[in-house]
């Protein structure tokens, strides 16, 4: 089965206790499917149900399809400046 690596940052990396998680992807897997999988992992239940997600360094919609070669990241509330 193909997998994809999801990058985690800041408070989300603290919640999961890791900077990345590896998840299975099948044809038809969406951004929201990945988020739901992550929220079922230990420590991740307090993750928002619809966090911002980036695919290939751009914000993605929750119904966007995910490919194994994509660069995926969960984006906690940003606080630059």
């Amino acid at each position: 089965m193909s997998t994809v690596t999801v990058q985690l940052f800041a408070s989300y990396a603290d919640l999961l206790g890791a900077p990345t998680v590896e998840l299975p992807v099948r044809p038809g897997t969406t951004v929201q499917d990945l988020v739901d999988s992550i929220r079922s992992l230990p420590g991740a239940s307090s993750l928002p149900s619809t966090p911002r997600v980036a695919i290939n360094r751009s914000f993605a919609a929750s119904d966007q399809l995910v490919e194994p070669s994509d660069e995926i990241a969960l984006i906690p509330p940003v606080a630059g400046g």
Partner: protein
Amino acid sequence: MRRASILTGEIDPGSLINEVGSPQYGAISLFIGTVREVNEGRSVSAIEYSAYKSMARAELDRILDEAEERFGVSALIVEHRIGLLALGDVSVAIAAAHAHRAPALDCTRYVIEEIKKRVPIWKNEHYTDGTREWVDPTRAAQPSRA
């Protein structure tokens, strides 16, 4: 002259002015963000900034594209620092030059507001009581905090 940088060294706002300046422009607008000693009533000792660097650079480039399109400002530089910053340190600087003041001023305002909405950079505030917390601007907006 247009560039966006994420850096770990100190920001020198004066060098940004020199870089965007030109006799064709009558106005240079410079915004500087610095580390403040109090946030939401808590005494801050330092802030550790981190970023998803490749996306932060890409998002900054998109913001500069939009700013050029909206305000006709092509002399535009933004630098954002990451790492551990002390009180008073410059965390972000934006310089915009234009023939006239209004587009230069509007442009710097636009860039900093968009940075705060969508560039993947985070602040871990260190407080004088020894605790630390991730800054979450979306949480502060919720009425349940009142």
